[in-house]
């Protein structure tokens, strides 16, 4: 819901103590706060409680198949770009129990479902990530057959977005039109301003619940100049070293026999990392398990990948046995046929598939190669 009608959206300036107050207010209302923290040489999204859990002074360097944390030499809490895995981990967990059942004398009964966990507060959602959450919301039932798990978790969630003021080397949200300004769907938006006088946050509420929480955090009202400075800082993140040739990428379905597929197949290991880290990839497999007696059964939904052989298994065998056909399937669906299916691209330009592909295969480079060859420029 929009903020109180007729008034400008509530915008305040918080210092880090104020941000801590915001986290406290969120937790007091019963949300489980998930946000960035440093673990295992990376920024991951995990349970956080206070500002002290956030990655202070931590930046990152990312390129194809490469990720390193870098000290920034300042007190920024959101100075990294995107975390190792996105919010999909919490909104659509890698293993979900769909139901369990017990055998009875006359058949079987379905066990009652467990109570849902406490609602999530996602702290530090970037523009590309917000876009990805919206893409998945569409996948999981904009039309028919809404997925109750995803939609339920998203509906209950509080989203605190953070706009980037610096792009990573694998980012290309600008060319996908998904950032660096965060689109719709958040409750509160932060812009982190790192200055000589310290670190402050220009915080804007977009919903009533966001506004209530911001009030509780007790910041001082933001002036026009603060908002303008924040917007200017975010503009800097639109300077990106990679870009997607979107006109070509939308037409990938027209080039199934392009020679590039063989070239990328020589490098691709079909390891599936790209699909696992992609914040929009949604494919799952369903696994039925039994106990030894066969009296108790469970059905689990698990993340799957179009890079596995089983993924395209139908009666008699798998369809996509070659590496080229699996890579082509992934990138073509993501960038081209997703439009037919959902009326938008399935890629938000977060760059994770580039960074976390162990051999650094680059989605923008693959499209650029096809772009160049089809334009006769090579």
């Amino acid at each position: 819901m929009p903020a109180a009608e007729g008034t400008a959206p509530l915008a305040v300036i918080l210092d880090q103590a104020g941000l801590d107050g915001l986290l406290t207010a969120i937790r007091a209302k019963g949300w489980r706060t998930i946000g960035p923290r440093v673990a295992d040489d990376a920024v991951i999204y995990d349970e956080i409680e206070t500002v002290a859990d956030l990655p202070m002074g931590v930046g990152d360097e990312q390129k194809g198949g490469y990720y390193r944390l870098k000290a920034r030499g300042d007190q920024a809490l959101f100075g990294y770009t995107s975390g190792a895995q996105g919010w999909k981990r919490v909104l659509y967990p890698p293993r979900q129990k769909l139901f369990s059942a017990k055998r009875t004398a006359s058949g079987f009964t379905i066990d009652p479902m467990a109570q849902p966990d406490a609602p999530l507060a996602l702290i530090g959602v970037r523009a590309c990530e917000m876009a990805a959450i919206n893409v998945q919301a569409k996948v999981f039932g904009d039309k028919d057959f809404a997925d109750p798990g995803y939609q339920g978790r998203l509906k209950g969630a509080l989203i605190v977005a953070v706009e980037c003021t610096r792009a990573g080397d694998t980012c290309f949200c600008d060319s996908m039109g998904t950032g660096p300004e965060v689109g719709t769907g958040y409750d509160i938006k932060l812009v982190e301003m790192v200055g000589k006088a310290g670190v402050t946050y220009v915080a804007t509420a977009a919903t009533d619940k966001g506004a209530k929480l911001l009030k509780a955090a007790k910041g001082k009202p933001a002036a026009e100049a603060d908002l303008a400075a924040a917007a200017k800082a975010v503009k800097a993140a639109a300077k990106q070293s990679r870009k997607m040739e979107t006109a070509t990428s939308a037409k990938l379905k027209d080039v199934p026999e392009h020679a590039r597929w063989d070239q990328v197949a020589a490098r691709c290991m079909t390891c599936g990392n790209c699909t696992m880290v992609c914040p929009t990839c949604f494919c799952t497999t369903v696994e039925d398990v039994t106990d030894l007696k066969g009296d108790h059964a469970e059905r689990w939904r698990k993340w799957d990948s179009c890079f596995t052989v089983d993924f395209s298994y139908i009666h008699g065998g798998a369809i996509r046995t070659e590496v080229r056909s699996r890579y082509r399937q992934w990138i073509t669906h993501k960038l081209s046929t997703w439009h037919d299916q959902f009326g938008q691209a399935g890629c938000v330009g977060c760059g994770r598939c580039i960074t976390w592909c162990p051999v650094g295969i680059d989605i923008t480079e693959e499209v650029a190669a096809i772009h160049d060859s089809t334009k006769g420029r090579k």
Partner: protein
Amino acid sequence: MAERKRPKLAVWKFSSCDGCQLSLLDCEDELLALTEEVRISYFLEATRKIEKGPYDVSLVEGSITTPHDVKAIREVRRQSKALITIGACATAGGIQALRNFKSVKEFIRCVYAHPEYIDTLTTSTAISDHVSVDFELRGCPISKHQLLEVLNAYLNGRKPNVPRHSECIECKANGIVCRMVAAGTPCLGPVTQAGCGSLCTGKDRGCFGCFGPMETPNTAALAAHLKELGCSGRDVQRLFRSYNANAEAFRKESETHG
């Protein structure tokens, strides 16, 4: 539910360290439940009590390394309705398959005072190189969860949930930050079958390839990347030559480096 007849289970050992059989004993909590469902008819590691064959299910650990093994495994096959091989030794020849790359005669001469007492083959090979096998369960050692899953699937007449995709998929599902990307640690995960539960990558180690080649291993692409990370040809060869040295994809890759 109607009582079903408990199938007879046999556990056999060839050239191996016993670690995979131990995974069965390691099932502690589930072991009693398992004995209610199967009749343990032959399992020397657990009991001296032996029942004659034929057996409904045989779990076979170990590789074939002697002329005696070759005969014995044929007899096991004859006695078993279903034969499931367990572990890297049984499914690929194990670490002892390193002998396949060298002269065994030479080893025997160096090691034994009386080489004439030694009766061995020059290779260590998988059970499936000698008899037909119904299911191969990978790992060095196998995962007890996967072992239970395979027995469970057998008992309930369904397909076991044992994926053949890469370890990376399991790694990501477990929320582990990629060691290769974030720390530059050489890792066999992209070409290795999942199933271990990310034991090594979860402890800041690269994958050692215990579960053998995944379904479509692009070992050449990984090897090229390992070299970019600073591995020498010999390092790459050594990585591919461990517990699954004789698995075809790993063997071939190792032979192109050194």
